[in-house]
């Protein structure tokens, strides 16, 4: 099918195959169509159908609540049935040459291990090496579970042959039930990516502030490992706030201690517990980490007071946590071009 996209600044044409979502097809052609979640919840990818017909793969998608007229649809959920012509209300630029262009690929879950009773660490071996930026995410589709899920990469390498994810169990959730109740090692999955603009490059040359709730810490680890590879924290500060309910819900504390050793005092890691005070044992076991009590955005706000100069902030986690953190940063007078976020909606 031929797709014609009229954006505010110019037009683009590309082809889709049967069933291929219009957003993914356009992004694969290095056309920077607007999106945020790429999975039907945020409404950012909305477009207007001018001519032709589309098939909606998920008519119940929560992101449809942002649609106003009958001729609007979500590009991340709809595939073309005929040749179509659509309008996108924003500026659309080609994806820049130094940014990785997403593609569809396959992979095999090569390891799955529980980090806590409701957090699982997955490793997916790819059928082809992939470049991605620190902080990006991937769409993953498991057999028998409808729709893609967005998961942030934990690792960061050039030409990565496998991707690591951490997934939090959502009771009753489609992929959660599958992951936590099946032996998923060896299973082949479909992937599309890399996606996401909350990325970190060493050329950023700013202090880095990470605020993450639960599995939101995934992308932060990717950013920190990229930064550590470049000895970034010898020049810039890094402040990481990792929010969980109780110490039992925390994970990767040993990895954080190692990063502290590697990066030195310019890296500051605070574990924020919302439901308890940190037991003394936590401090003994992890002398290089700090522990505090409260919601992660409040804890970050307290620790960062007066420390927002030349800062780029990365936020990830459940939408209410991300919204609360944005509010804290705006109150501190950060401008939004320095606030990058992924809402795990």
């Amino acid at each position, binding site marked *: 099918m031929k797709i*014609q*996209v*009229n*954006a*505010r*600044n*110019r*037009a*683009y044409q590309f082809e889709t195959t049967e069933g291929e979502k219009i957003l993914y097809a356009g992004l694969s052609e290095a056309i920077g169509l607007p999106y*945020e979640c790429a999975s039907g919840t945020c*409404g*950012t990818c*909305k477009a207007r159908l001018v001519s032709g017909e589309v098939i909606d793969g998920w008519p119940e998608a929560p992101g449809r609540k*942002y649609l*106003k007229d009958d001729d609007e649809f979500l590009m991340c959920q709809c595939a073309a049935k005929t040749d179509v*012509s659509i*309008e*996108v*209300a*924003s*500026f659309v*630029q*080609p994806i*820049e040459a130094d940014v990785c262009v997403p593609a569809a690929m396959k992979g095999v879950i090569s390891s799955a291990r529980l980090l806590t009773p409701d957090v699982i660490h997955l490793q997916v071996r790819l059928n082809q090496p992939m470049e991605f930026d620190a902080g990006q995410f991937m769409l993953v589709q498991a057999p028998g579970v409808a729709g893609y899920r967005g998961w942030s990469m934990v690792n960061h390498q050039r030409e990565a042959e496998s991707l690591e994810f951490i997934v939090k169990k959502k009771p009753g959730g489609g992929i959660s039930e599958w992951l936590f109740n099946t032996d998923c090692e060896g299973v082949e999955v479909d992937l599309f990516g890399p996606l996401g603009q909350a990325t970190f490059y060493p050329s950023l040359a700013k202090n880095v502030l990470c605020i993450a709730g639960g599995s939101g810490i995934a992308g932060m680890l990717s950013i920190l490992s990229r930064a550590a590879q470049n000895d970034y924290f010898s020049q810039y500060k890094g402040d990481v706030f990792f929010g969980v309910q109780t110490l039992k819900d925390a994970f990767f504390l040993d990895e954080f201690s190692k990063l502290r050793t590697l990066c030195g005092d310019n890296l500051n890691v605070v574990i924020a517990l919302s439901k308890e005070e940190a037991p003394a044992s936590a401090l003994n076991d992890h002398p290089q980490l700090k522990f505090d009590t409260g919601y992660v955005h409040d804890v970050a706000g307290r620790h960062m007071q007066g420390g927002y100069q030349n800062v780029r902030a990365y936020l990830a986690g459940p939408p209410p946590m991300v*919204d609360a953190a*944005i*509010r804290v940063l*705006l*109150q501190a007078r950060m*401008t*939004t*071009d320095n*606030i990058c976020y992924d809402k795990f909606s």
Partner: protein
Amino acid sequence: MSKIRICNTAEIPSNGMKEYDTEGGLKVLIANAGDTYYAYQGLCPHQEVCLAEGYYDGAVLTCHQHLWQWDITTGKEVGTLAEVPLEKYEVQVEDGEIFVVQSSALKAAQLFMDVSDDTLQRLDLLARREKYGSGGVLYNIGDPTDDLYILESGRVEFLIGRDGTSPAGFVLRKGEVFGWAALLENQERRIAKATSLEDSVLLRLNGEATLKALESDPVSGYLVMRKLSTLITRHLGSQGEK
């Protein structure tokens, strides 16, 4: 739009904001900053979410959806995310009541938002309001580039190519200026055909007369030309604005 009563000043929290639906179906946002009240379009120009649900600290308004930001005193973009300014309405406060007035339709045009009041009045006199039905042709390829246009309502499509049938793909927003070749030198012929896609209302200004008005007010003229050059770079698909 004429003068519309919106609310009582007491309803607006100090350094806060509130949205109202007017009888004409317009959503307006009223914001307070110190002693002053401001009125803006109530829906985000990006994806039409309610700005009243966003963040406002008495100086900067942020849309919660994708964090576009504007200066509350001018409606201008703050930072690099916002692609367009907010449409601002003039506010009058009388006996504790807030009224919104739209004195000049041109004020909504981004290209002219920085122009002084005097010059805006002169331009207002130049502007003609025109209505086009669906399929109505504003201009054809090869036509002289005498006039520029501002979209007040409706939708306009541009067709390019030798026979004027391939869509150029621009999607215009309300308040957007097009046909700006009328302000440029050595751009005497239209390179696109512009047609109205539905019932549309446009403001049409003669390019030469507009330039004259701007020449007599070089400060305003300079600001318009700066806006125009930004506009042109964007349409060239420039990537210099990362």
